[in-house]
């Protein structure tokens, strides 16, 4: 059945029907790419290196704490974006490159609706944000219904390329609608462009960072409750475990897939909206965030919600520490080298509890 005409993707298609994930199917002898000792040793070396570099600059505990806190803020946003990738992947087996567009649509729509209301204040902001999240979710569901659903028989790679096309189109439409100019989203605490700075010990935190953490925790907890406690959530989990069995049990798999896209739209939009006050949203902000979210999702195992959040946090912290003690130009390089090494040391995603 699995002919070679499905390049590189027979694997992908097959994997979506299998649980637990076995990303590493080689014979036992080759199973561990690097010996067990390498991982802790490498982490120790990297940690010592970062510490030494920091000492050279006269860093103490407050500085390191600051870098860690900064890293968790960025990392939380990466994590939220990553969860969007995971939700879609689990049900459809597709890496949804349009996720970055949902992240961009959240803040851009919020700002547009807010401008339409013309009043500032907490309630209008919340209303605008809620509307933007709903609209983004609607767009995401439409994307699935009209592009991926008709192509559901195609290979996973073909469907991935379709999401790339969707991303290009959505970003182009955003450029048409909003132009290349940066926009301003009011900070949640002050409802103005200027945010409050909180000083705890030697560490400075934006009030918005607290919102990022709070919204992140609430969203992920809500998602877990959804999967554990609701019928729709359980049905989606069933699709993720075994699609054919789910269908035999009377679950409308295609509807679940559309629903998963809706969830991804919500997650993306929420991530974009909580991040927006700390940046200046533009039509092309989705590419970078989508890429980082994708990396975080894969690092976390791609099917694992806490793993994706953890992947985002680790990525954010690695970037922050590196930029803080050495040259920021190489921060992505450092993050990717670490990720590849960690993948090699633990190919199923280092945060997933070992299936080995």
């Amino acid at each position, binding site marked *: 059945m699995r002919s070679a005409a499905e390049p590189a993707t027979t694997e992908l298609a097959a994997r979506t029907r299998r649980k637990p994930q076995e990303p590493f199917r080689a014979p036992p002898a080759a199973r561990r790419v690097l010996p067990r000792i390498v991982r802790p040793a490498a982490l120790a070396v990297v940690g010592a290196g970062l510490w030494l570099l920091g000492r050279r*600059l*006269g*860093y103490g505990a407050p*500085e390191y704490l*600051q*870098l860690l806190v*900064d*890293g968790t*803020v*960025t990392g939380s*946003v990466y994590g939220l974006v990553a969860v969007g990738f995971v939700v879609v992947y689990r049900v459809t087996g597709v890496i949804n490159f349009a996720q970055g567009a949902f992240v961009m649509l959240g803040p851009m729509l919020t700002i547009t609706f807010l401008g339409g209301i013309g009043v500032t204040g907490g309630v209008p902001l919340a209303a605008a944000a809620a509307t933007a999240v709903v609209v983004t979710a609607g767009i995401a569901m439409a994307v699935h219904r009209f592009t991926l659903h008709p192509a559901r028989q195609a290979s996973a790679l073909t469907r991935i390329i379709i999401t790339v096309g969707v991303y290009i189109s959505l970003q*182009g439409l955003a*450029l048409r609608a909003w*132009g*290349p*100019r*940066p*926009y*301003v989203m009011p900070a949640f605490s002050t409802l*103005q*462009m*200027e*945010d409050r*700075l909180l000083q705890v010990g030697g560490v*400075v935190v*934006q009030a918005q960072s607290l919102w990022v953490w709070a919204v992140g925790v609430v969203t992920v907890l809500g998602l877990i409750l959804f999967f554990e406690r609701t019928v729709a959530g359980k049905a989606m989990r069933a699709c993720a475990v075994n699609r054919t069995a789910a269908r035999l049990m009377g679950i409308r798999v295609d509807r679940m897939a559309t629903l998963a896209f809706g969830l991804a739209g919500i997650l993306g939009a929420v991530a974009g909206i909580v*991040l927006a006050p*700390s*940046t*200046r949203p*533009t*039509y*092309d*902000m989705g590419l*970078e*965030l989508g890429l980082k979210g994708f990396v975080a999702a894969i690092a976390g195992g791609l099917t694992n919600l806490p793993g994706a959040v953890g992947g985002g946090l680790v990525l954010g912290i690695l970037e*922050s*520490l590196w*930029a*803080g003690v050495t*040259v*920021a*130009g190489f*921060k992505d390089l450092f993050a990717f080298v670490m990720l590849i090494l960690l993948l090699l040391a633990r190919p199923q995603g280092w945060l997933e509890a070992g299936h080995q």
Partner: protein
Amino acid sequence: MRRSFHAGRGLTVLCLGLAAFLAGALVYPVLAAPAARVGIPYRIGFIASVTGPGASLGTPERDVARLLQDRLNREGGIAGPDGVRHEVQILINDDQSRADVAASLARRLIEQDQVHVLVGTTLSGPSLAIVPIATELRTPNISMASARAIIEDPNTQRMRPWIFKPVPENLHSASKQAEYLKAVGINRVCHLYENTAYGQDTFASAKHEFPKAGIRILYGDSFDRFATEFPQVTRVRASGCQAVVIGSIPPAAAVINVAVAGRVGPRKIVHGHGACSPDLIRTAGAAAEGTVMPCGKILVADQLPANDPVRGVNLELISEYARLTGGQPISTFAGHAYDALQWALLGLRTVPDGQPLGRIREMVRDGIERIRNYVGTHGVMNLGPDDHLGFNPKDFVIVTVQGGRFVLLPPERWK
């Protein structure tokens, strides 16, 4: 009675005749103008980055090209030295901020559309990709990007014969910054730059210019365009510098401006000329207040002294631009596009009718190189065989942000 009537009628006829003659004499040249010889239409190839990372620069440039096309259509094109009128078409293209697309477009415009002069493009990388093509196909090219290497071969230090640009460089910007910093008594600075071609170049230029003025850069590093948290600020706090120089364009310039202003305490923030855009004030808000930057005069045209030669040109462009774009404030990038296209038109004006394509391109090139006392958006420019930029660094002005608008800061008010 009857006689007088006749006499009156005669007088009337005489008067009417005289009036008709006078009117004819006045109207004749106007009526005769279309009858004058009309030459071949001139084509200007125009490439800007309307999409991709350069879009916030390229879009205003594209709008200025449209603005000038409208103006040229109204005026019936341009006249050559022999009085022959030529229609001018500006062929507008988007290179998507990509070097390979820019190169492809340049070759197509030169070979297939047979443009007489090529204006473009927005960013340094894509502009550099056009350089070999314009040189090989012997077509004058006026870039709107800033890197020195566009007009000057870094290996031989010679001007590239076919390439021009009206855009000031980061070296000019850095030397103006140094002049200001020295005047206000600052000699230890930190330099934060956006990790883009522009940002990297601001840092290299600062390292070149600042030591000459006795200013030390204690710490310099890059940050990402989409970054929201800045570990670099931790380093700035630890370094003990008196001012932070930022090499970035909005929106990243605004985000780091906010981060530095909030966390580093009362330290002077100095931007590069890439931040000379209304977007900085719109997206940095109160944090931008009191920051200073060297800018082209276009940004503060209304505050220039009445005798400043570039005041009129800029005010006219600003109002026309606002009309075309529905009230958008102008940025310096729009000014670069205006200057580049004006140079192209000045070059074309030197060409007599009836020349073959290759000869027209050569004459346009020579014409641009001979431009003297051009009153542009960024100052009065003089080009020559050894200077394809023509910008006089004295035309940079120091500008500060006060009450949500750019305010000209003449040297006597620096302290």
